[in-house]
């Protein structure tokens, strides 16, 4: 496709032009806290260099809190209503490939399963992904050990590469091509194209972990010793799953305000005791070991069997957020080593 170059000084103008026809979601710096995904109006200072965001890109597709419907119970006025979903095309700018890949994982669950999730699907179908190539992986990153970045890059609409003063914008899809338009875009020079390719190769050359290239799905075993070790340390918080770009489980709750009942879904995690606790008190996963195992096996085995996609993109958020330093890379290494 027709790759373009845009000067960093023009980025803001480009985004402002996108805002005219799209809802634009971008990393917005917040005082006193990490940058967050927010809808921008074209005037804010957005931070494409924010790097990997604390909250994954699923934030937009699966908001922390998503109203499913409202029911008015007032006598004679009973009415069940679905909230309006966005009808404008939406562009998400600045997400990393790991997050973009995670959206493919979410697509499999929410779009390809037997039932299609209307809330997710409506947002997803209108969503274009403008991803950025990582130039400075974090200590916790391991994307190259769980996936093929060339393959992942096909899942976005535009791929941006930081070249210093300029940004190299490569449209991947037709949708992407529509976005990379405007007088501020120029054709890249040969040198720029070369630099872009180097950045890409550099990223792919990131040191690999022992489990890279192994068939993790086959190595994840129900009886592995690592489950006991994890369970001992795990505190059962939800930080890993809440931040995971591909974790997709949710809870459904009702709120009653006067006569209005609102049903919403919100984030939930298989790491909470309550997750599988049934009304009568029975819990099929009462022990922490069962819950930690479930999360890993779901990502690396069940999701593969169901949708032929691994539910982990090596973003490293779970590693950074785990208060007891349970490192997914160590877990996978142990699983692979045990199998060998």
């Amino acid at each position, binding site marked *: 496709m027709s790759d373009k170059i845009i000067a960093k000084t023009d980025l803001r103008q480009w985004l402002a032009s996108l805002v005219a026809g799209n809802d634009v979601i971008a990393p917005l710096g917040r005082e006193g806290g990490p940058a967050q995904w927010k809808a921008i109006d074209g005037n804010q200072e957005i931070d494409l260099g924010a790097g990997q965001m604390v909250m994954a890109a699923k934030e937009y597709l699966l908001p922390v809190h998503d109203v499913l419907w409202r029911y008015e119970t007032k006598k004679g006025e009973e009415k069940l209503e*679905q909230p309006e979903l966005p009808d404008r095309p939406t562009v998400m700018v600045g997400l990393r490939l790991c997050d973009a890949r995670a959206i493919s994982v979410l697509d499999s669950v929410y779009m390809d399963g037997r039932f299609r999730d*209307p809330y997710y699907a409506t947002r997803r179908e209108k969503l274009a992904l403008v991803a950025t190539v990582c130039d400075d992986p974090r200590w916790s990153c391991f994307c190259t050990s769980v996936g093929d970045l060339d393959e992942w890059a096909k899942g976005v609409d535009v791929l941006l590469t930081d070249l210093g003063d300029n940004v190299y914008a490569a449209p991947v899809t037709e949708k992407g091509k529509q976005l990379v338009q405007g007088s501020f875009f120029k054709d890249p020079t040969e040198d720029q194209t070369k630099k872009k390719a180097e950045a890409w190769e550099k990223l792919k050359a990131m040191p690999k972990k022992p489990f890279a290239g192994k068939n993790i799905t086959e190595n994840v075993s129900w009886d592995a010793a690592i489950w006991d070790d994890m369970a001992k340390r795990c505190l059962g918080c939800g930080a890993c799953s809440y931040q995971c770009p591909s974790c*997709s489980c949710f809870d459904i*709750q009702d709120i009653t305000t006067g006569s209005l009942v609102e*049903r919403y879904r919100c984030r*939930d995690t298989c790491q909470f005791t309550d997750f599988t606790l049934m009304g009568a008190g029975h819990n*099929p996963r009462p022990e922490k070991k069962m819950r930690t195992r479930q999360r890993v096996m*779901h990502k690396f085995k069940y999701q593969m*069997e*169901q949708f032929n996609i691994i539910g982990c993109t090596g973003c490293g958020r779970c590693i950074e957020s785990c208060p007891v330093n349970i490192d997914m890379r160590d877990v996978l290494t142990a699983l692979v080593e045990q199998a060998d």
Partner: protein
Amino acid sequence: MSTDIHEITKQQMPNPYMPHLAVVEKIIEETWDTKTFRAVFQDEELREKFTYEPGQFQEVSVFGAGECTFCLTSSPTRKGYIEFSVKRVGVVTKALHELSEGAIVGIRAPFGNWFPYNEWKGKNVWFIGGGIGMAPMRSILNYCLDNRGDYGEISTIYGARTPGDLCFTYEFDEWRKNSALHLTVDAGDDSWTGRVGHVPGYLMELAPKPENTIAVTCGPPIMIKFALQNLKELGFEDKQIFTTLEMKMKCGIGKCGRCNIGSKFVCIDGPVFSFDQIKELPPEF
């Protein structure tokens, strides 16, 4: 199997999270802690065309209290209404128990798979149920009875803790008319003249022959465990034995992740499983 009911469900529910409004037409007090609700959809067109398969489940909303999963205890052969039986255990079931006739509930249905009754044609069917476990089997039992000619011998063993804990007593006569009904209780009372003892033991006494026979069992885990052992002893193979699994569910459509066991979701791959299928699953039950 018949046409893909999931396709029908999708047509019936363009947004699977939006419940259909239904009126509670009748409430039957089964036992001290269990009630059966008969609900009728408000939408007349839906009431006419609504269809489901025996063994499928539904999500029932009590507005404000939340939603809960119940199997359809009525048989699709009996049109115009749906039924579900509720044991009072938690917040939603308590709210349901407090409803009176005429109340409006939300129903999302039908979900999940069903008993492969077509494959059972020409075979004998034994239903082995305990307590509230009779609720999902009532649907398929009544279905088989309404298609009586398709099946061989139909027998039911139904047990409960006490005579007062037996549900659906008002249908016993009907069940006895065209099939065999064997009742047992763990502890009788003054008026109880029937058998006293556990279901698995009764099963051994009655000793159904495995040839050309299907066994369906549902009830408390401990009962299923021993019923299964005994069926094996009688010569039943895993694939001849069916049950319906209970697991916490929220969405009912394979998204929320709660009822995930291995690569299956109980809500879309189940709740009906044969024991050879269950054997393939991780041992979480």
